[in-house]
């Protein structure tokens, strides 16, 4: 009897621990081959045949088709520069310059990868649409209510991710630091 209870206990631990770990790894993302620059993280190997087993399982589960490395590279930001989660009720500024690329796009998604509903039907910007200063730097304001300048509506949702995609770019598997790829700062300001 004690043996049986022991086995049942061990199996319960195994199931809970093993599946919990899988769930955790697939929803949080892993550090394999990740490049983190400021608030931004990219997994360039995910767009190649060298993709790691965790990313492979994650894309099978989500249905995403990762951007191919011959096409571009995607940087994700779910936190600001100080490590706080991006909140759609607050004002967040993306400011600075971007790494060398033929062009880039910046898009807001909810945590499941859906676009964020808003009255303006505006889900992102391309590098050719935004207004810049004379030196080429720019500010993009993410806020629930309309702003002057480059405004992206957050729809007031709790949490979201910003994806900055560089197309036709030297940034990729060989990139290590902000020197190779200067990413814009992500700064949270006041909340509504």
């Amino acid at each position: 009897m004690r043996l049986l209870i022991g086995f049942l206990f061990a199996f319960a631990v195994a199931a809970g621990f093993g599946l919990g770990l899988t769930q955790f790894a697939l929803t949080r993302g892993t550090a394999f081959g990740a490049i983190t620059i400021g608030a931004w993280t990219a997994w360039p190997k995910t767009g190649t045949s060298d993709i790691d087993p965790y990313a492979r399982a994650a894309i099978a589960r989500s249905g995403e088709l990762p951007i191919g490395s011959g096409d571009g590279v995607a940087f994700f930001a779910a936190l600001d520069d100080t490590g706080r989660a991006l909140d759609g009720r607050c004002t967040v500024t993306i400011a600075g310059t971007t790494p060398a690329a033929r062009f880039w796009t910046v898009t807001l998604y909810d945590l499941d990868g859906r676009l964020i509903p808003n009255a303006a039907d505006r889900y992102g910007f391309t590098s050719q649409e935004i207004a810049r200063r004379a030196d080429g730097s720019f500010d993009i304001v993410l806020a629930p209510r309309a702003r002057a300048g480059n405004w992206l509506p957050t729809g007031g949702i709790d949490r979201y991710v910003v994806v900055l995609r560089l197309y036709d770019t030297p940034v990729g598997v060989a990139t290590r630091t902000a020197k190779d790829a200067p990413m814009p700062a992500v700064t949270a300001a006041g909340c509504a």
Partner: protein
Amino acid sequence: MIRWLLWLLGGLLLGGIVHLATVLLLPRTATQDAYTRLSATAPANGIMALPAPTPDDAVLPFMDPAFATAVCRYDLATGPLKLRVPVSQAYTSVSFYTRSGIAFYAINDRAAGRRIIELDLMTTEQRGEVPEDEEVTAADRLIVESPTPTGLILIRTFGPEPGLMPMARRALAAAQCGSQS
């Protein structure tokens, strides 16, 4: 007490195995992966334009709304596939994915270096059957080997601003994907 700690340790070890097994097996059992989602609507060895993603409805998660996208779901069982994509004015890319969504090859208009991206997609076996001399005469023909007999090709054209999206979609309409004959 010691006995319970041992059971716990055994459970954790087994849990590690469960974790690795589920991670490795998940791609084979996934029911919501990109290929499965698209095979309901996309024809085999033909081109289908994907609707622009909206908050309520997107075929795939994390699609870039600045692009017009078309998909060719390929099945090489009947022979190699020919792909012909005239490039748009802004930017055009072609990405190849295996049955389980691994991006094994991608090329853009600049890398292709001409007005039309022309590719032959075949399995390693079919590649071996291509006669040597034919390969020489077709030196300017790009051959891509697919690791799996089925998979997806994503053709994407860039719309630099919302007003230019119709142009991007028109450029996609000229793309061709089909069996060689």
